[in-house]
């Protein structure tokens, strides 16, 4: 039996370790489990980046048919990632700073940082510059659901808030209260 990579219907190339049956089991040896967790978090982040997925929930491992099936299950070898194992992987990812619990104060759903908030801040500012949105007030909706798809399409509001807060620190954005919630105004960086 040879363990090889596999290309999923969505065009994602699964690493060969995904074809190894024990990869789906929580390892009793802590050193081995650390390797397994490291491999899983790498896999989760790259798959999220590939499909532009922002959220991962323990529920995704419980019920089939979700957008994470290609990764959390391997029908070819009849294995799936047990929800409890996924939960401990999520915990490790949060500790490592590549994910954050969303909403806070629970451990079953995370926001994935396949780009760190700092990187999102740069993407956001660059997008605002290139689309000529400097100094105008924008609603969050205009950013997350733009008429022309952008790298920020569908970005979750909590992540957007974090990115704006980072820009605000360097005076490149300002949060503004508007009639139906919050808005933001972008500034060119001070020379």
């Amino acid at each position: 039996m040879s363990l090889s990579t596999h290309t999923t219907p969505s065009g994602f190339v699964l690493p060969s370790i995904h074809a190894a049956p024990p990869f789906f089991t929580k390892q009793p040896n802590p050193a081995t489990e650390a390797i397994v967790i490291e491999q899983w978090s790498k896999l989760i982040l790259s798959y999220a980046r590939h499909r532009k997925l922002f959220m991962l929930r323990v529920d995704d491992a419980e019920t089939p048919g979700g957008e994470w099936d290609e990764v959390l299950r391997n029908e070819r070898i009849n294995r799936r990632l047990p929800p409890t194992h996924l939960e401990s992987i999520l915990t490790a990812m949060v500790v490592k700073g590549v994910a954050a619990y969303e909403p806070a104060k629970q451990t079953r759903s995370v926001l994935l940082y396949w780009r760190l908030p700092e990187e999102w801040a740069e993407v956001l500012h660059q997008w605002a510059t290139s689309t000529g949105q400097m100094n105008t007030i924008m609603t969050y909706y205009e950013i997350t659901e733009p008429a022309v798809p952008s790298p920020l399409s569908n970005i979750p509001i909590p992540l957007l808030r974090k990115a704006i807060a980072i820009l605000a620190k360097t005076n490149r954005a300002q949060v503004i209260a508007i009639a139906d919630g919050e808005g933001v105004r972008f500034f060119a960086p001070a020379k």
Partner: protein
Amino acid sequence: MHRRGVGLAAFDKQQTTRRFEELSNSISQSQVTHLNSQLSQFRTALTHFASTHRDKIKSDPSFRHAFQQMCTSIGVDPLAGPRKGGWWAELLGLGDWQYELGVQIVDVCVSTRERNGGLIEMEELLRVVSKLRGVSGGSITVDDIVQSIKTLEPLGAGYQVVEIGGRKMVRSVVKELDDDQTTTLALAQDQGGRIVEDMLIDRRGWSRERARTALENMLLRDGLCWLDDQDEVYGRAYWVTSAMKWDV
């Protein structure tokens, strides 16, 4: 007036000794000269041979093997010599070649250690090293790997070629394998890595306790295998990562 008798006494003892010394000197002188000329001839021949076949020695594994065997049979170590690396090695560039291969072996062993617990099958090592070297590196053989691991010995990193179940494996961690582990590893290799208690009980006649202890030790203590708790047949299977065939 007496004439001196013609007898042995006529020979001046001292003179004789001197003559013999002269003769012996001249003989050994000529022998040394002869030897020197032979040696230089041998060297020239070797240099010529080496420079003519250097590329072939480096690129053709069977030629390299034959060459190394020839060296061993005439008592010449291609890597030894008066200078660092040896004039022999310098002549061939074989020293660098061997060290380079050694570095590649270490690279593969270290980078796969996490997933195989520091034990890699020779074939697998050969495959990954060959991949690392690319096509231009020429093909390498098990012999080359064994040779290179020998050159790594002075480093004391504990790289060792061990034989398990008739198959060569390279161990990159200092870890003694007991008999039960060796048996388990050998069996796992036949099974593509997967092993369960019942296999050891049925095929090796072990008691369940003995089988469990061996497997759990490998799992928990040595990190030589991974657990699969979703096994269709037994529910709990052990996977010896060094016996699994990884494509990447």
